[in-house]
């Protein structure tokens, strides 16, 4: 088990190298380099720049060196905790990330939990009451949830809240708690504001998980051992919980690996629509402003979030399911 953990953690390293490489390419793609874009922006604002200053800036960011050295410089700076400076928001990138990433994590984790609980309950219900009205309704809503883009759902909920209840959904805090220190009231306010984002982000994944759990459980329930148990008079609830549910849950828990990237994706766009103080809207702003250092770092942290999340879920799964072979 210990060697499995070590190997699994070591596997992260090549992944991180690949991620950073891809992100570096994204940063490098737009025409013109970082400094000249910065200079152009300054000049637009009427600031006079000197040739020597520009050269100094270029040297500082290693722009006079070949691309692969620039990449190494960039990685080395990040390892030292220097993620560069954002000209779009005029702050160090790291402070922007530190401010916004926690909310992204909160929403992602909350969505994951929501998605599990709902999928578990609805999946079990629909499998045990196959072809009942509830099953049909759940299947219908599930398909709809899978097909509706996150932002559409966010828009529709916003519109309903606004036109029916007359208030604007958005943000993670009510105005009075916006800059307040952390109190019980602020936490409750946050939880209240989490409901809509979590529903919006979680719907598609939940719908998928329900389908998986329902299919697995139906497979399991039709197996001879369950029929034998029924013939021997084992009560329905016990018949369900003793084995079939446990077996059906295993593939279900392993779906976290692919659900987490989806959640982070969904969270990004939903946050834009609902103007949440998470990474998403900042990423969009950075991209629109072509502030590629900020954008690159944000994508890097989002990727890191999914990689670490997948790692944690893999380790949990290995701990829960003894059938996983550690020696591979």
């Amino acid at each position, binding site marked *: 088990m210990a060697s499995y953990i070590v190997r699994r953690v070591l596997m992260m390293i090549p992944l991180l190298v690949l991620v950073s490489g*891809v992100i570096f390419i*994204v940063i490098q793609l737009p025409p013109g380099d970082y400094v000249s874009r910065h200079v152009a922006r300054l000049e637009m604002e009427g600031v006079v720049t000197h040739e020597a200053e520009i050269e100094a800036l270029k040297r500082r960011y290693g722009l006079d060196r070949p691309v692969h050295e620039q990449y190494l410089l960039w990685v080395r700076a990040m390892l030292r905790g220097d993620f560069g400076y954002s000209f779009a928001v005029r702050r160090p990138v790291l402070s922007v990330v530190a401010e916004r990433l926690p909310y992204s994590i909160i929403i992602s984790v909350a969505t994951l939990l929501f998605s599990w609980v709902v999928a578990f309950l609805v999946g079990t219900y629909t499998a045990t009451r196959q072809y009942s009205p509830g099953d049909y309704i759940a299947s219908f809503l599930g398909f709809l949830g899978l097909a509706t883009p996150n*932002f559409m759902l966010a828009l529709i909920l916003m519109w309903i809240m606004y036109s029916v209840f007359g208030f604007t959904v958005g943000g993670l805090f009510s105005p009075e708690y916006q800059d307040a220190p952390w109190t019980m009231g602020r936490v409750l306010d946050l939880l209240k504001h989490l409901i809509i984002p979590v529903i919006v982000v979680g719907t598609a994944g939940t719908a998928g998980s329900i389908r998986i759990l329902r299919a697995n459980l139906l497979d399991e329930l039709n197996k001879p051992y369950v029929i034998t148990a029924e013939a021997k008079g084992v009560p329905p609830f016990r018949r369900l919980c003793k084995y079939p549910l446990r077996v059906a849950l295993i593939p279900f828990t392993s779906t976290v690996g692919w659900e987490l990237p989806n959640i*982070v*994706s969904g969270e990004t766009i939903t946050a834009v629509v609902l103007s949440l103080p998470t990474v998403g809207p900042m990423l969009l702003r950075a991209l629109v402003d072509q502030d590629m250092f900020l954008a690159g770092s944000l*994508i890097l942290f989002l990727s890191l979030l*999914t990689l670490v999340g997948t790692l944690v879920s893999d380790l949990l799964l290995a701990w829960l399911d003894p059938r996983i072979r550690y020696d591979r």
Partner: protein
Amino acid sequence: MSTGRDNTQHQRDEGAEEQRHPQGDRSILVASQWQLMWRRLKRHRLAMASLVVLFFIYAMAIFAPFISPYDPFETYPQRTFAPPQIPRFYDPEAGFSIRPFVYGLTSEVDMEARRRVHTIDYDEMLPLHFFVRGEPYNLFGIMETDIRLFGVEEGTAFIFGTDRYGRDMFSRIAHGARISISIGLIGVFISFVLGVSIGGFSGYLGGGFDNAIQRIIEFIRSVPTLPLWMGLSAALPLHWPPTTRYFAIVAILSIIGWTGLARVVRSKFLSMREEDFVVAARLINASERRVIFVHMVPTFLSHIIASLTLSIPGMILGETALSFLGIGLRPPVVSWGVLLQQAQNVATLARSPWLLIPGIFVILTVLAFNFLGDGIRDAADPYSTEGV
């Protein structure tokens, strides 16, 4: 029959086995796997309904200029944010009419709110005519014509309302379908080429190459898709012409799309390599090329078609999301995502909820592709005895 004392026995054996099939439908005995698959698919009601829906959506995209009553870029400044004029057959005073009609609109400017307010004028019935002459347009770049599917002779008929510049939403949705739907198809085609070749080599060669490809696929799948797409499409030069941008966006969407297909192809290759009839083909000295293209590929082609169908929705949703955020396709290009951009503001949305109608088309298309893909996947299993 050849000589041999157990011949009579054979005939009895065959006769008995022939009984397995009802005398009625003998065509099934000489039906190929494709024909059998089509039979099974026809029994999948949701898939067939989806096929019909997709047929109509594609027809709408192909014949967009003919179907739409107005030019998608024509603005009607008197009619900004006009509500849908729903076609009706019944009027309380005039009773039923065979010919559908729409009520007219009266517009006035609300000075206080500084916007145009439209009210439905129930006294003004504007009959809808078919094959009317409207503005001239060019169909497929070969035919200059001004015949449009429907329209009114005087007044306006905005059946899905208008946007903030007074452009007809229905015409814009019909034209947007061309972009949104073709992105799915082209993207899937690129994914198909990438996925089949990379997955095929991976599964066929195995070993180190396979291992490397598998790691890369795992990597791509573990990265959150949308932020990566956003980064890549925001990095596209702004001065690129719309067509170049369109293809660049398709390429970006396919970067993720091919991985799913590559996995399917690879796992099929791996399992097929050990399949008895593939081994049998090798044992009669069939060449590798023959083994792959005559025995292996046709057997899993249906699975590929199913996963291709199931990967179209992701492409359509991806384009919609990117364009909605303003970093995918940009106006003046009309796509469903671009149309939805106007619906970003709650206040606007509350006043003009019809701006969400393009989203309904997105959902409908995605649903249809999902159901169809499910249906094909179920029908594709050659050894399923269900329904045969």
